[in-house]
């Protein structure tokens, strides 16, 4: 109840009621993804990711140029399938895993730890929009990295394969499968990110699992339990290279080796079929998206 005040209150121009009616869930997800993608493009993590791809591309280009003419490299550059089957299949998986870790590892955990979630979640927006928007932004940023890697490979392909063979249909097919793998991997990464409120834990767990954890588990299951590891995402990864093969590998091969004391040991190797690969990747994508969102919906900003 002041009769005199040392500071005059300032009047904001007003419009008589709150402005705007919140758009639908999908529209809000798109809006958020646009700004999140912009944030990614300007971030150090984007520079880091592009640097990783650039270094991989530079090493690849150097090796191809240096050993050009040697028997090994000549074999790899003899056909577009041989070239991309070697360099694209393995390389793109690495690029996808790194971009998943870098763009998705802390996507959800960071909202809690960095408190950016407080800025977003006070708005009239469903958590599903935030989750989907961030997923789409991470997907777009990862796609840029994948396309950058593809551009480096295609440029090398143009040099060593010639104008008529540097962009085969099999590469388009493999690219499409790689995108499915990226969708599934990002879904898994977002699930792990939703599990933690700490960015470091989220990134570490995702990195350990996807860089070698799943591969080790897959190997152990095959060797010890002797079953097909159809439930491990890394098992489906090899499907990315199938378009470059003239014939698909046998689904299951068993080899028996005789030990020094006459003891034989049997080794079984599994290769996913196309259908299996698609089902595993699609399943991971859908199930991890549902589970991740379910967790995010229940996380509290304490």
């Amino acid at each position, binding site marked *: *109840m*002041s*009769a*005199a005040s*040392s*500071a*005059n*209150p*300032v*009047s*904001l*121009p*007003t*419009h*008589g*009621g*709150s*402005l*705007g*009616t*919140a*758009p639908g869930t999908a529209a*809000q997800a798109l*809006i*958020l993804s646009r*700004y*999140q993608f*912009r*944030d990614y493009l*300007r*971030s150090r993590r984007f520079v880091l990711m592009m640097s990783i791809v650039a270094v991989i591309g530079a090493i690849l280009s150097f090796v191809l140029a240096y050993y050009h003419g040697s028997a090994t490299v000549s074999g790899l550059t003899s056909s577009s399938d041989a070239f991309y089957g070697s360099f694209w299949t393995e390389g793109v998986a690495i690029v996808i895993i790194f971009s998943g870790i870098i763009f998705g590892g802390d996507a959800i955990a960071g909202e809690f730890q*960095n*408190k*950016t*979630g*407080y*800025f*977003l*979640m*006070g*708005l*009239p*927006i*469903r958590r599903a929009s935030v989750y989907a928007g961030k997923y789409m932004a991470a997907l777009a940023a990862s796609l840029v990295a994948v396309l950058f890697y593809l551009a480096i490979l295609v440029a090398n392909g143009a040099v060593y394969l010639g104008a008529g063979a540097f962009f085969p249909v099999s590469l388009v097919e493999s690219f499409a499968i790689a995108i499915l793998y990226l969708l599934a991997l990002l879904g898994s990464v977002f699930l792990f990110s939703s599990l933690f409120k700490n960015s470091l834990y989220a990134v570490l767990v995702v990195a350990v699992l996807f860089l070698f954890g799943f591969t080790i588990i897959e190997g152990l299951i095959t060797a010890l339990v002797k079953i097909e590891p159809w439930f491990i995402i890394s098992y489906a990864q090899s499907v990315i290279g199938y378009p470059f093969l003239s014939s698909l590998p046998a689904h299951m091969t068993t080899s028996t080796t005789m030990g020094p004391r006459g003891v034989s040991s049997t080794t079984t190797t599994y290769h996913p079929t196309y259908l299996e690969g698609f089902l595993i990747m699609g399943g991971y994508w859908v199930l991890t998206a549902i589970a991740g969102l379910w967790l995010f919906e229940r996380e*509290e*900003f*304490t």
Partner: protein
Amino acid sequence: MSPSLEAVGLTKRFGSFTALDQLNLKVEGSKCVGFLGPNGAGKTTTLKMFTDLIFPTEGEAFINGVSVQKDRKRALEPCGDLIESPEIYGSLSPREALEMNGALRGMRSDEIRSRTATVLEEVKMSEWADQKVGRFSKGMKQRVNIASALLSDPEVVILDEPSTGLDPRGMSEVRNIVRGLKKEHRLIFMSSHILSEVVDVCDEVALLDRGKLLFYDTLANMSQRLGGGVRAVEAEFALPIDDGILTGRIASLPEVAAWSRSDPRRVTLQVRGGPTEQARLLEKLAAMQLGLLNYHESRSALEEVYLREITQGEA
């Protein structure tokens, strides 16, 4: 319909610890309500449930009659809020962050542009509008957060200790902004543990301690609780007031029950009666032409009520 916030049996437990215990509170109308309480009283917990950042163990929170827990999107539509000190994506500029906020709220482009300019001007961040938020100090970020809370010209404004992280000048500016927000058809609900902040800007006070609501009342009634009809006001003069004037002319006024002096230019007067007598006393002091600079209700009144209630709660 007038803007409103309502907590119905709102309870939050973290394990065996009860942060908020059966809060029943309805604030309604165009006013500024201070949500007071010591650290750990449950203020932020309450506001987080009003904005769906955390979920109640029991009960429900309503904004303009819409349940936050059942339909957060519709409930938060008329609401601008600032809870704790949010971070904004570091590579975005304040203008871009507010554009995103406006777009997510469904504001038109021209509304976003004009309101962005207005609120950034209001929080004195116009010249930083296109710089990256990641480079800002905590205080600058808090200003952008306040701008964000005001962007949609909301009917309900929820502020959780808005002057946190600001220097004394910034705190004063924030109070000025909150005072400026008072208008027809707007409810401001502001938590604070700074009594002077609440006295400066609020009309009503809800006092919370250890998860329980101790009372909710107007500032005027709260002062009445202290003195049983006697209010304290502080008068500041341009020049020292000598004892003769104080005892002879001021203390003899029928509205003055007692007086004390903290320094030669400031006098605390106990006023008999309510706001009418307080206003009459002001008129009389001004008419004496003693160089009255400032006249306001004594903050110590609220402080005493606050401390008394909190102490009783502890006992």
